[in-house]
């Protein structure tokens, strides 16, 4: 009798566990796991999206190495990643530290600097298109006002500055995101650490390099990964500004993938590009975690 009651309780629990899990799991498997696997499959076939699919083994992947379009887009993506990491992370760290040390207006500054993060990249890209207009745009007007007319450019067609102009909104938009993450981490550090450093006569620079960076190292790793994966999936800015053109001069891998799939209707090759993006993102995350695991053990 008692045993049977425990059995029914156990059974009810099992039924409840599945009943709560299944709806979410089903949607997730159908729309995330399934497509992911299907994407790997598509990368080994030739397919225009409607007709029959032919198995081509690794041909699409081999084409990655010979396609000049892919190679250009690949390097553009790498450049974007490098520039984002080099500018966003240090700037965000300094800003977070300054926010932490300030006593007034902390929320005000945090909100203003974070503001661009919440706006759609499509809107941001569109906004920069307006700024870059050679006659009416803000950028050339500012250069004129500052007496730097010699620096004026056709920002979105001059090949010397094109890629930089397309990368700028990505760098500008997400500094605030990294800043609030660093800032949130800083707030968990006991104030006394900084006070005693100050007592010992440490300068602001010393505190920053000797205390802030080591203490936040764990979080800096996270923002680094975020910055790299964020760059790998950047799409909206170049798409709205130049559609990756002229040619593929301002394409990232995502833009090329989109063009190959939905303009050229070559789903196989596009899926190989997708797979390359996924593999790069995963490899970076995993390898980076491995390399830096040593330091993070103590947490």
């Amino acid at each position, binding site marked *: 009798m008692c045993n049977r009651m425990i059995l029914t309780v156990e059974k009810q629990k099992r039924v409840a566990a599945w009943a709560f899990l299944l709806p979410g799991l089903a949607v997730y498997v159908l729309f995330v796991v399934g497509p992911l696997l299907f994407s790997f499959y598509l990368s080994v076939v030739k397919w225009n999206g409607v007709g029959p699919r032919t198995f081509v083994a690794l041909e699409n992947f081999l084409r990655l190495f010979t396609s000049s379009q892919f190679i250009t887009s690949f390097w553009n993506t790498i450049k974007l990643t490098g520039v984002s990491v080099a500018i966003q992370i240090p700037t965000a760290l300094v800003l977070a530290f300054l926010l932490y040390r*300030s006593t007034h207006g902390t929320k005000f500054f945090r909100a203003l600097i974070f503001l661009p993060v919440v706006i759609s990249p499509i809107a941001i890209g569109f906004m920069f298109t307006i700024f870059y207009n050679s006659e009416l745009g803000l950028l050339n007007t500012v250069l004129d006002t500052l007496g730097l007319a010699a620096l004026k450019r056709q920002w979105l067609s001059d090949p010397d500055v094109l890629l930089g102009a397309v990368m700028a909104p990505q760098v500008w938009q997400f500094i605030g995101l990294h800043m609030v993450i660093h800032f949130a981490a800083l707030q968990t550090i006991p104030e006394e650490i900084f006070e005693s450093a100050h007592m010992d006569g440490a300068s602001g620079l010393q505190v920053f390099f000797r205390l802030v960076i080591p203490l936040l190292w764990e979080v800096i790793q996270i923002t680094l990964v975020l910055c790299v994966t964020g760059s790998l999936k950047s*799409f909206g800015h170049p798409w709205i500004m130049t559609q990756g053109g002229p040619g593929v001069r301002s394409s990232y891998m*995502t833009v090329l993938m989109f063009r190959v799939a939905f303009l050229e209707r070559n*789903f196989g090759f596009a899926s190989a590009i997708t797979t390359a993006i996924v593999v790069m993102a995963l490899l970076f995350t995993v390898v980076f975690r491995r390399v830096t695991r040593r330091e993070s053990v103590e947490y």
Partner: protein
Amino acid sequence: MNQLSISPRISVRSFLRYGVLALFALAAFYPFFWILLSSLKDNFEVYSNAFGLPTLWKFENYATAWAIGDFGINFFNSLVVSSLSTLLVALLSAMAAYSLARVRPRRSIYLLMTLGIMIPIHALLIPTFVLVRSLGIMNTRLSLIVVYGATNTSLSVFILVGFMRGIPRALEESALIEGASWYRIFFSIILPLSKPGLATIGTLTFLNAWNEFVYATVLIANPLLRTIPLGIASLRGQYFTDYGIMCAGLAIAIVPVMLLFVLFQEQVIKGMAAGAVKG
């Protein structure tokens, strides 16, 4: 005495500190402000009076931009799609998280369901297009609702499982002893206690859905079903030479998000930071 000798150095320091912060705040905000200013000017003034207030306030720019960008319809679609996908994610991932955190923890399923955090969203674009087409829901709001729901599930489950694990066991144990079912416990104990976590994932999902462009452009062709990012793209696409109108269109698209941000600042920032610090 000591105080006196230190204070000048401190004030120089804090002056520098606030100076740098103000500079970056300006760099983050001024571009939007310039768009707002220019949205009330004509071309001539955008150029000749780039930094000042408009001399002739062209409010009609907004009416024109509203009509050209079809913003009435776009707002409605964005609102429907973003709210329903947020509801969907909140309900399904809260239920899944409850199952995984409180009823019966299963590590393998938890890992599977949070795997999506690592997958760049564009990786699923082509197969999703094929899937949506074969399900016959191409060109429907439903397709966007389900896709946004699914792509935001991983992070939501991750955040909610973390949150629900923190709720004390004692509450539900006493409820179980009194004969409450698992369903009852979910709806009357766990769900109400998870409100802060739900607010975080809700804000995050809503914002993601509101801003999403690439899935929308692939899955929606019907102009009547366009969301705001598609409206912005079509504004850009029509060859336009009137900058005041373009700025007005942009302002219509971004000002509501800014207002929402001002209202829900804490949730948004917390959600974004939590979304980042995920692994």
